[in-house]
């Protein structure tokens, strides 16, 4: 059994005064040990909610896991109560948050914030924990750890704080690390440093990682596999090569097309028209249909199932159906596909 995590038909909803907001609407994916999965998508596509639900960190109420299973080493996290979850959080699954300026407690010494998990989960005493904190700070590249651990977050720069956040997440050697846009709030040079650090650490610790981002450059850099989310669903999932060089879903085409590239100086930057649907009342059929220039009539009526493109590659679009017309992807995508001609295939998908 090498599946570390298996998420099946996960639905997460928020009960608001306006009604039920269906933020995550049937997400399926799995993760092997040591693997890195990137989840990409626009703001509001349900990336963060999905991963917060894995740790049951969505505020309840108004949020709730409506249905589905989250099998972590065979145990269903969705059915665990708060007490049981407290033993999982920080120990088996930990999380790195987006904004290092606000995700550390301003009134607690950095060392104590890292130690907390060690004392709680690994039953260390203070001096053991202190030793481990020094090791961890060293691991994440903070110089002079003995003195730095006695300081408060405001005495650290943004990049250094994110290193502390990484150290907190790594403290108990988690089997799964969830990084929720860990580089979004940092400036570009620091982003690169933190990414290098995370890749480095992953090599050393061999923990599986879910990497949430809307930066496709980051995805290419860190991920083994990519899941593209739209309106609370995964619309396409595959290896990095599948997604970058043989994308099948029009939404993925849009995402890739809106990525600025250095060799196309004359073009205007492409943007997907329109905005994501209101999840208070999700549209019938394919949620992306309204913004999709390749939409078929059936997209407006019936939701597309997942079609299998290859053993690793699946996409939810009617374009892969055997009766669908042949549609050429946009020029920029075709250019990419030609670059990787060996992996592109003209074959139609097979329904799963």
């Amino acid at each position: 059994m090498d599946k570390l995590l298996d998420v099946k038909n996960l639905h997460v909803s928020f009960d608001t005064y306006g009604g039920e907001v269906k933020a995550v609407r049937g997400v399926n994916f799995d993760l092997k040990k040591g693997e890195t999965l990137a989840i990409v998508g626009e703001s509001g596509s349900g990336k963060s909610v999905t991963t917060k639900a894995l740790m049951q960190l969505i505020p309840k109420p108004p949020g709730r896991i409506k249905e589905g299973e989250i099998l972590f080493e065979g145990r269903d996290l969705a059915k665990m109560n708060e007490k049981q979850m407290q033993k999982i959080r920080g120990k088996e699954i930990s999380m790195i948050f987006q904004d290092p300026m606000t995700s550390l407690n301003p009134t607690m010494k950095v060392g104590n914030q890292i130690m907390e998990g060690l004392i709680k989960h690994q039953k260390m005493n203070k001096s053991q924990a202190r030793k481990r904190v020094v090791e961890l700070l060293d691991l994440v590249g903070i110089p002079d750890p003995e003195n730095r651990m006695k300081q408060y977050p405001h005495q650290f720069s943004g990049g250094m704080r994110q290193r502390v956040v990484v150290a907190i997440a790594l403290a108990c050697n988690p089997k799964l690390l969830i990084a929720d846009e860990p580089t979004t709030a940092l400036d570009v040079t620091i982003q690169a440093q933190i990414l290098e650090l995370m890749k480095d650490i992953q090599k050393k610790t061999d923990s599986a990682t879910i990497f949430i981002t809307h930066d496709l450059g980051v995805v290419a850099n860190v991920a083994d596999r990519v899941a593209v989310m739209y309106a609370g669903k995964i619309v396409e999932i595959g290896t990095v090569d599948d997604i970058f060089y043989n994308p099948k879903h029009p939404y993925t085409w849009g995402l890739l097309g809106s990525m600025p590239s250095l060799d196309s100086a004359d073009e205007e930057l492409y943007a997907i028209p329109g905005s994501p649907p209101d999840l208070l009342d999700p549209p019938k059929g394919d949620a992306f249909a309204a913004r999709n220039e390749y939409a078929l009539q059936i997209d407006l009526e019936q939701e597309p199932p997942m079609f299998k493109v290859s053993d690793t590659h699946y996409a939810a679009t009617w374009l892969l159906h055997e009766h669908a017309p042949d549609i050429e992807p946009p020029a920029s995508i075709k250019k990419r596909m030609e670059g990787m001609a060996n992996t592109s295939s003209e074959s139609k998908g097979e329904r799963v």
Partner: protein
Amino acid sequence: MTRYILQRLGYMIITMFLIATFTFFLMKFLPGTPLSAADKLSEEQQAVVLEKYGLNDPVPVQYFNYMVNLTQGDLGISFQFDNREVTTIILERIGPSMTLGFQAMVIGTILGMLLGLISAIYHNGFLDYGSTFIAVVGKSIPSFVFAGILQYFVGVKLGWFPVALWEGWEYTVLPTVALAIFPIAIAARFMRTEMLEVLGSDYITTARAKGVNKFGVVFKHGLRNALIPLITVLGPLAIGLMTGTLVIENIFAVPGIGEQFVKAINTNDFPIIMGTTLLIAFLFIFIILVIDLLYGVIDPRIRLAEGE
């Protein structure tokens, strides 16, 4: 740190000097004389009495004399209380006021914070509505109404505690409770708002993601961050309560300083007015200093740089 405190004490002396000066001249504008039966005394008799207390001198001379005495710690003698030392009278009177104020503050802060915490933890639940209701009632109904209710039901009907006077600890219970209602309401409201804000912040999610339980999240991570605004409002409130509240002291016949202060103003008892004003001013400035130091203890971001 020591330098900072010394500097603050220096400012404190300047502030006290300014307050003394301002109050002195302001007081001289009060209508009437300190003589309670002026119309029964002849002109000569009045002159003799005024001469005795130095009230015939020009105001600047009086001011100069007062300030000279003040630097030697001499607050003068009271006009109305048999020529007794102002210091003695104030010390005698401040005791009951401080006791009541202090007890009310301690009870008010602890109960108020608890109510606020309960509200925040069970946000929008039954307990939240209950404690918010208590806070609204406590803030909107004046303390003398509570005083009356307490006296009638707890004092007279149930007979648990004495209704008035000042002859032992049990006499402090009802006035303390009546006084505590307001700080309870204030502390509860602030605690609730601040705690809710803190519980919604990112570092609380970080703490939860570490596996910290609810208790640890609220008390270890939340409380300290929620305290700053609370201290800011409670400090001045504490001074207000501890330096005597005229209404409550009158209702419960407590020989406190609030009641005496008002009486001194009505009778132009200048030395008592000055003495009490200076005492209240001193306590106020002192507590503000303490609060500023407390900020640093609670929040490292406000702490002074090392060695300063």
